[in-house]
């Protein structure tokens, strides 16, 4: 299979603590892959390395058969990699629309940006009503919408989401995941990090289980859902 992203033996340390102990994972173009694991397993760390916010101690990071290791964070977006960070990372003192325009920062096509802006407002009508409101005054769910719409404004090839369901009411979680499926159907490759393992595995095609900085299991979403280990550790069975 021809992979869009390939991670090999990736190691990351925070000072003396090794957060990633050599992980391997790969994602093909168009896939929806999930990375699950308990608190402190290293999921956010993995995404930060992929986005360029953290530098690995060693390992390979290939994107379209090109190494990303020396590509700074702000250039990775240009390469098509977008991250919706943990805690959303919206710009609270910018308006909703300004947040979305920040997502299109790397683009110069005015007409295309205006089109995409309207597309986001169709996808998230709630944001359309609030386009001139300061993003910091939105509810948690609305802020998650801003974070996702903002990431989509860069027209990513690979969209990485770090716990998009965090802190949201069940109805809002359902709505966000519906949107994620929709984005996936449109051909965007997705790497989804979630604590809610069942929902993540029901949404994704494949999954990896991260445990204390190492991949302990991987397979199709169906295989993982059926596995005893996953059921016991993450599905509360």
């Amino acid at each position, binding site marked *: 299979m021809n992979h869009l992203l390939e991670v090999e033996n990736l190691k990351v340390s925070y000072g003396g603590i090794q957060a990633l102990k050599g992980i391997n994972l790969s994602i093909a173009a168009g896939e929806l892959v999930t990375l699950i694991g308990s608190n402190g397993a290293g999921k956010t760390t993995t995404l930060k390395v992929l986005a360029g*916010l953290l530098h690995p101690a060693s390992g390979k990071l290939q994107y379209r058969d090109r190494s990303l290791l020396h590509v*700074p964070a702000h250039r990775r*977006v240009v390469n098509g990699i977008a991250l919706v960070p943990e805690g959303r990372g919206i710009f609270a003192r910018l308006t909703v629309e300004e947040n979305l325009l*920040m997502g299109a*920062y790397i683009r110069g096509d005015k007409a295309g940006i205006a089109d995409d802006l309207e597309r986001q407002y169709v996808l998230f009508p709630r944001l359309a009503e609030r386009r001139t409101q300061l993003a910091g005054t939105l509810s948690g769910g609305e802020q998650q919408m801003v974070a996702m719409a903002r990431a989509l404004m860069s027209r990513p090839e690979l969209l990485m989401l770090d716990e998009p369901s965090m802190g949201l009411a069940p109805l809002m979680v359902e709505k966000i995941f519906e949107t994620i499926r929709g984005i996936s159907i449109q051909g965007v490759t997705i790497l989804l990090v979630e604590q809610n393992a069942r929902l993540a595995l029901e949404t994704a095609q494949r999954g990896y289980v991260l445990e204390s900085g190492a991949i302990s299991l991987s397979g199709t979403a169906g295989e993982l859902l059926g596995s005893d280990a996953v059921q016991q550790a993450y599905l509360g069975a």
Partner: protein
Amino acid sequence: MEILLQQIINGLVQGSVYALVALGYTMVYGILGLINFAHGEVVMIGAMIAMTVLQALLTAALTPVLAVLLSLLAAMAVCMALGYSIERIAYRPLRNAPRLAPLITAIGVSIVLQNLAMMIWGREYHAFPLPFNSTSHQLGGAIVNDVQIAIVIIALLIMSTLMWLVHRTRMGRAMRAVSENPAAAALMGVDINRVISVTFMLGSALAAVAGFMVSANYGIVHYYMGFMLGLKAFTAAVLGGIGNLRGAMLGGVLLGLIESLGAGYIGDITGGFLGSNYQDVFAFFVLIAVLILRPSGLLGEKLAERA
């Protein structure tokens, strides 16, 4: 009554200069959480360059208008290069260092610039060779001259342009994004280092204009002039709420007014015990009062806990 009006006019003029310099402090603080104590020296260098270039151009028999314009542009260009270099050389290597390190470095840069200016221009006061007679006008018993009118108008123009830039352009949006969440801004494709450089250059350009203004207003230039002016503008930025652009402008004008009114009436208040030469006291009185009563400043939202 005339005294009151006169002091208000003087306060507005001086306050416009403080506002321009305070903007430089507040922009850098907003984006880096750093008090760039060398900023006052950038104002001084701007004044020195303006004086030198203006003198040379007038000697070369350029028309006064052209000479003033070109010397101002030269001062702005030199200060922008200086601001860029200060950040690159002195602050960037310390980006992730403990907070005290860049603060001490800022003071060091300030001393270096002062001494550099002393070596180049000497310790003496220089006359600022303004090639116009600044005509004085009567205004309800008070007097205002052309230079003062120009200072207020130009400051207003520059501040509106800056507000437009920060709130209406792509670069301005990126600056606000970086100041709020640098990591998230990087994820959007913003080159943070570039935005920081632009911020330093913008602030330094304003400093150059301010340096030209004070020199034209008082008619003298001196290598030590940046020190007190810098401290006062810093006070103005704190008064308005450091990190807040509108706060810097408000704080600048208010400080100018407080100083000027204070100096005008201190003799009456103290029964002649203190004279207007105590003018500088007011700025620091204001600074202390703000730090005690409202550390976040007039328009600041949250307490600034970064140094």
